[in-house]
């Protein structure tokens, strides 16, 4: 099963290498890793998407916790969370296909960020599935290059029980 793990780590030299080393040394899967500074410049947040059965995921979390530079590890998979990814997609484009591409871009609320006589570059953000769907829709036009950031994720603050939406008190 896919798991999204969020890490708070010290923003120090070699921390990413330690984490990458742990995954390769222990043979864990790593679908994506994403890192950036947080509101506190001494800390970075890292989002790792990985796969494995429950025992493997438990080990991954425990092993990450063992690293001295890792301050906090949260498996977001079973929590309400927001996850986003950004993809840059460069595709072949002619005068005849341009308007169809623009239409698809609009549907996905994506942006055209570069244009040339034969290509278009599109920026799309969203959850993993949305980005994947956008790429699939653009595939027939001829994708030349793709760059993806990998998932970044944060826990949702509203974690109370979902209100009963079926109740008649809800506005229509």
């Amino acid at each position, binding site marked *: 099963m896919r798991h999204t793990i969020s890490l708070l*780590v*010290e923003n120090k*030299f*070699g921390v990413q290498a330690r984490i990458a*080393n742990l995954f390769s040394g222990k043979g864990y899967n790593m679908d994506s890793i994403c890192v950036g500074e947080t509101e506190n410049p001494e800390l970075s947040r890292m989002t790792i998407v990985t796969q494995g059965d429950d025992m493997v995921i438990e*080990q991954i979390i425990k092993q990450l*916790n*063992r690293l*001295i530079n890792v*301050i906090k590890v949260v498996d977001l998979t079973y929590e309400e969370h927001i996850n986003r990814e950004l993809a840059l997609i460069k595709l072949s484009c002619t005068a005849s296909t341009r308007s169809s591409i623009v239409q698809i871009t609009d549907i996905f609320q994506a942006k055209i960020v570069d244009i040339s006589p034969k290509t278009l570059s599109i920026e799309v953000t969203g959850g993993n599935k949305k980005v994947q769907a956008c790429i699939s829709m653009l595939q027939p036009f001829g994708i030349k290059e793709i760059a993806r950031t990998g998932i970044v994720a944060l826990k949702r603050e509203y974690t109370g029980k979902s209100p009963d939406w079926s109740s008649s008190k809800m506005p229509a």
Partner: protein
Amino acid sequence: MQRVKEKESGKKVRAGKKERLSGSEILIRSLIEENVNHIFGYPGGVVIPVFDTLYNLPRPKVVLCRHEQGAQHMADGYARASGKTGVCLVTSGPGATNLVTGIATSFMDSIPVVCITGQVARAAIGNDAFQEVDIIGITRPITKHSYLVRDVADLARTVKEAFYIASTGRPGPVLIDIPKDVFLSESEFEYPDTVDIPGFKPTEHGHIQQIKKAAEVMAQAKRPVLYVGGGCNSSNASAELTELAHKAGIPVTTTLLGLGAFPEDDPLSLGMLGMHGTWYANMAVNESDLLIAVGSRFDDRVTGKLDAFAPKASVIHIDVDPASISKNIKVDYPIVGNCKKVLKTLLPLTKKADTADWLNMIDHWKKTHPLKYKKGERVKPQYVIESIHKICGGDTVISTDVGQHQMFVALHYKFLKPRTLLTSGGLGTMGFGFPAAIGAALASPDKKVVAIIGDGGFQMTVQEVATAVSQRLNLIVAILNNGFLGMVRQWQELFFGKRYSHTCLEYTNPDFTKLVEAYGAKGMKVEKYDEVIPVLKKAMKVKNCPVFIDFHVDRHENVYPMIPPGQMATDIIE
């Protein structure tokens, strides 16, 4: 180094009065603050400033090894025997890479060691400079943590953190890499009193509800077994463990690293379990309904076939490292915490379990399946080990190398006290036993230290004879010389149709007595049964000089009992 000497002579320089010192002075002052008495080291280009600071300094004493691997093993043996953190100091490049086997040994067995390596000057890092190597990168998977000190102002705090991390929680090796120009630049020195590492807050006290639950389960068990590992030795939990076993009436089996944590002359002792464990220890685990793992990690040499290990038992696991729990087998009652502290909390809650029938059964097994070996014409290694136990007594520190002799020691030497066996269990490092014994002899000058090693392993770190001689150590080295890489030969005999591919050393082995005498040590030779005891007695009388005894033992002897690899307890060969 006047300033360090002043500190040495007791004139305490405390906070408030900051001094300006060079990086190498700060390093040594920090080591003195950590009560380091011995540094195992080897000089080289970039660490000359540090060795210069150490010149003529009474403390810390530098023990000059003859190869950096020896330095790391000595620091490791020093730590295992004393419980203090070992320290080694080597130069950059080849000096640092020579530590690698030793660091991995310490890492696998959770031994606290601080390894200090020199590095090329900051500006040269990354330029393939002379004797430059990325030792942080090389050792990342085999250290608990590591530091590259890029600013002399961080040096004292780094040393403080390194010692704290190495010795706290699950112990392990920590490496500090220091560039040459950091040794030479100056900063104000103030040794911090405390550390604050946000990502390192090990749980020491077990969760009380979990401990209560464990006590309840233990009281109800009919066939419980305590399965004790190195965590009991490293947390000095031997007394608590012994009390617990007696109070609850639970038999105790130990892993290789757990030997000594529970006295083997106790009726509740089952000896070692696992691949070469006793018949009754393995059978007890196989039949048990409750396995209480204390500071052990369900290593494959203990469990054999995982799904057939302790098939009828529920499992309580006490360990300071959460990652050890439920790693190999699913644990029913996990307790994260320091073994000593958890056992202390558990003790008053412990009730006597109804184990009379179980203990009778175990006694019956002990009588019907004792450890045994046949006496033959050639001296048997088991006999040598029993004789060492008889002559050298219970307080002696034994270190071993890796292979058949190691298993013979584990089975036939009766360990009575904690920290009396130093052995490379996890990594299985040949060449460890002899230098580790040097470290132990320096850590405990009042104790006798005996290294029991093979003829193969001895030649991997034989150069350290010079170190042992130069330190005038009270050290006996028993070489169980069978002219073979015995354990590999045993596997070749049992599993590879007696095709002894490249395991015979006999025709090219040196005359070990002559070899050690060339270094200035004492050499003795034993070829017959009736020489064993007299020669050992003679060796015990030698003072301030290492004695090497070349025991020519039966080359065809195998280690039994044995559970063939990947099989289960009931497949045991006696």
